[in-house]
C-alpha cells in the first residue's frame, strides 16, 4: 500500500520534471519543510509576538518598570493596571514587558556567546584532533561534571552579581556542550571524501575546517542555539528566583517571580507571579517548537 502511494508520487514528480515545471521551485528546501510544520509556525509566531511586545515596551505600556505607586499596592488587575501591581505598587504588565527585554537578551546573548566559543573551538579542534582537542575535551569534561546551577552560583559568588557578569558566566558554563556538539559533527564530516580532496589540494586546515566543513554542520548548531536559549532563560529565572541572578533592582522575568517566595503573596496575589510564569513557559515552549522544527527540517532523511 505505502509503496504504491510512493510510486505514484514518484511518477507524478517525474511527469512534472519532464514538463519542466519542477525547476521553478527555487525556495530553500529547509524553509519549505519548516513552513509545513504547524508547531514550528506556532512557535515562531508566538516568539515574534512576545519579542516585539517586549521591544516595544515603552509604546505599549504607560508605566515605567520601576515606577512606584504607593497608593496602589498589590492591587488586583483592573483597567488602570492590566495585570495589577506588586507589593510596592509597580505595574506588573509593564514589568513583564521590560523584564522580557533583559531575560531574552540574557538567554539569546548567552546562547550566541557560548556558541561562538564552543563552535569555533569545536570546529578547529574537531578537524585537527591532537593535543588541542584532547586538552579542550578534558576541560569541557571537568566543567560538565559540575551541576550547572552549582557552577553558576560559585562563579556568581566569585565575581559578584550583575547583569553582565551573569551573561559572562552563562557563556563560560555554556560553551562545553556547544563544543562537544560541534566536535562530534566535525568528526563525522572529516571522514568524507571531499575533505580528502581539499587536503590533496594543499588547502590549510583553518580554511578547510571553517570554510568547507562548518557549513555542513550549521543545522545542528542552530538547533542547539535555540534550545540553549530556552535553557538559559529558564536558568536566569531560577537563579533570580533564588536571589542569585540579575540584581533585584532590574526587572527580569526571574526577578518578578522572586517575590513569590513570600507565602502571603503566593496565596493572595496570583497576578504578581502567575502571568509572568506563564509568559516564561510560553516563550520557552515557543523556542522549543522552533528548535524541534529546525531539527526536523535540517534532517535530510525526513521527506518534506
Amino acid at each position, binding site marked *: 500500500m505505502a509503496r504504491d502511494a510512493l510510486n505514484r508520487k514518484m511518477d507524478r514528480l517525474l511527469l512534472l520534471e519532464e514538463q519542466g515545471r519542477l525547476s521553478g521551485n527555487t525556495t530553500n528546501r529547509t524553509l519549505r519543510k519548516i513552513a509545513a510544520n504547524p508547531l514550528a509556525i506556532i512557535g515562531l509566531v508566538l516568539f515574534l509576538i512576545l519579542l516585539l511586545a517586549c521591544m516595544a515596551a515603552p509604546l505599549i505600556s504607560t508605566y515605567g518598570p520601576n515606577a512606584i505607586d504607593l497608593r496602589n499596592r498589590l492591587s488586583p488587575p483592573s483597567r488602570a493596571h492590566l495585570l495589577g501591581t506588586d507589593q510596592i505598587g509597580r505595574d506588573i504588565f509593564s514589568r513583564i514587558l521590560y523584564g522580557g527585554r533583559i531575560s531574552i537578551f540574557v538567554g539569546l546573548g548567552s546562547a550566541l556567546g557560548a556558541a561562538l566559543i564552543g563552535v569555533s573551538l569545536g570546529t578547529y579542534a574537531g578537524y585537527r584532533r591532537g593535543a588541542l582537542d584532547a586538552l579542550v575535551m578534558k576541560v569541557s*569534561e*571537568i566543567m*560538565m*561534571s*559540575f*551541576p*550547572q*546551577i*552549582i*557552577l553558576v*552560583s*560559585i562563579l*556568581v*559568588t*566569585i565575581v559578584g552579581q550583575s547583569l553582565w557578569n551573569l551573561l559572562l558566566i552563562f557563556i563560560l558554563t555554556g560553551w562545553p556542550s556547544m563544543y562537544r556538539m560541534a566536535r562530534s559533527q566535525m568528526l563525522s564530516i572529516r571522514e568524507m571524501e571531499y575533505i580528502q580532496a581539499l587536503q590533496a589540494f594543499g588547502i590549510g586546515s583553518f580554511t578547510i575546517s571553517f570554510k568547507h566543513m562548518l557549513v555542513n554542520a550549521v543545522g545542528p548548531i542552530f538547533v542547539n542555539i535555540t534550545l540553549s536559549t*530556552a535553557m538559559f532563560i*529558564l536558568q536566569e*529565572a*531560577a537563579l533570580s*528566583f*533564588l*536571589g*542569585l541572578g540579575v540584581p533585584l533592582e532590574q526587572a527580569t522575568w526571574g526577578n518578578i*517571580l522572586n517575590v*513569590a*517566595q513570600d*507565602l502571603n503573596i*503566593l*496565596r493572595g496575589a*496570583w497576578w504578581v*507571579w*502567575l502571568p509572568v*510564569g506563564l509568559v*516564561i*513557559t*510560553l516563550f*520557552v*515552549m515557543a523556542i*522549543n*517548537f522552533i528548535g524541534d522544527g529546525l531539527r526536523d527540517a535540517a534532517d535530510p532523511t525526513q521527506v518534506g
Partner: protein
Amino acid sequence: MISFIIRKFLLLIPLLLVISFLIFLGMELMPGDAVDFMIPPDALATISQAELDLLRSELGLDAPFLVRYGTWLVNLVQGDFGYSLQSGVAVSSLLANTLPATLELSLAALVLSTLFGSILGVVSALYKGRLSDNVLTVMGMIGVAIPQFLFGLIMIVVFVFKLGWFPVGGRLTVGNEAFLQRLDHLILPSVVLALSMTAGVMRYCRSSMLDSLNKEFIKTARSKGLPPWRVNLVHGLRVAMTPVAVLIGFRLPMLIGGSVVIEQVFQWPGVGQMFVSAVRSQNTPIVMMVAFFSVLIVLIASILVDIATALLDPRVKLS
C-alpha cells in the same frame, strides 16, 4: 567487569585532584580570608596590623599557595572539610545533618521520574498517533518548558492552600517522625522535582521505543507467534531502555541542580537550601564542599551508567 570498575574508579582520582585544585583556587579568589570572617567587625577596628599578621601566620595563611593547597587536601582526605564562616560549625557535621534530606528527596524524584517517564513513554510509543499519545506529547512539551519552581508554586497554591491536602513546606511535623508520617511532606516536592525529568525521559523513551519496534528482530519475534505484550515489553523494551538509562545518568546533574531550587520552594532542610544561603552570605567553605561532593556524585553516577549500559546491552564490552 571487576577490573573495569576498579580502573574507572582509579581514573577518577586525577580528575578529582584537578577539580579539588580548581575549587581551592575558587576559594582563594573569593573576597576576604578566614581571618576577616573570624574577627567581628568592631574588634577589627582596634586590632593592629602586627596582630593580624601573627594570626594569619598561626593559621598558616601566609604559606605559599601550593603548600596551603596541600594542607587543605590532606585535611579533606582525613574528613576535615573546614568550618562554616558564620557559625563555626564543622562543614562535615552540617553536611551530615542536611544530606539525608536531600538524598531522600532526590532518590524519590529519581524513582518517580524513571518509573513514570518510561511507562508513559512506552504507552505513548505503543499508541502512536492516538489520542493518548497526543495528550502525553503535549504534556511533555509543557513539562519541559515550565520553570520547575513555578510548577512548585502552583502545586503549593492548589494542594496546600486551596485543597489543604498537604502540609506547608518542611520535612516533618514535630512528633510525627516515622517515615510514613513524613510521606505527606515528601510527596509534593518529589513530584515537582521529578516533573521535568519525567518529561525528558518520556520523550526520549518514546522515540527510543519506536526505534526498537522498527527493528528486524521484532518482526522475527512477531512472526514466531509471540503474544504482543511479550514482543513489546520484553523484546522491544529491553533494547529501548539502553539509551534511556544513559539519559537518566546524564540527567543526574540536573536533578541535583533542580533540588537546589526545589528545596528553596518547599523549605526542605537539605543541602540545596544550605548551599543557597551559603552562596548569599559568601560562606566559602560550605559552597565549595557542596560543589565538591556534587561533582563526586555526578562522576560516580557516570560510572554506574557505564555499568548499567553493559548489563542492558550484551553487545557493549567494558574496556
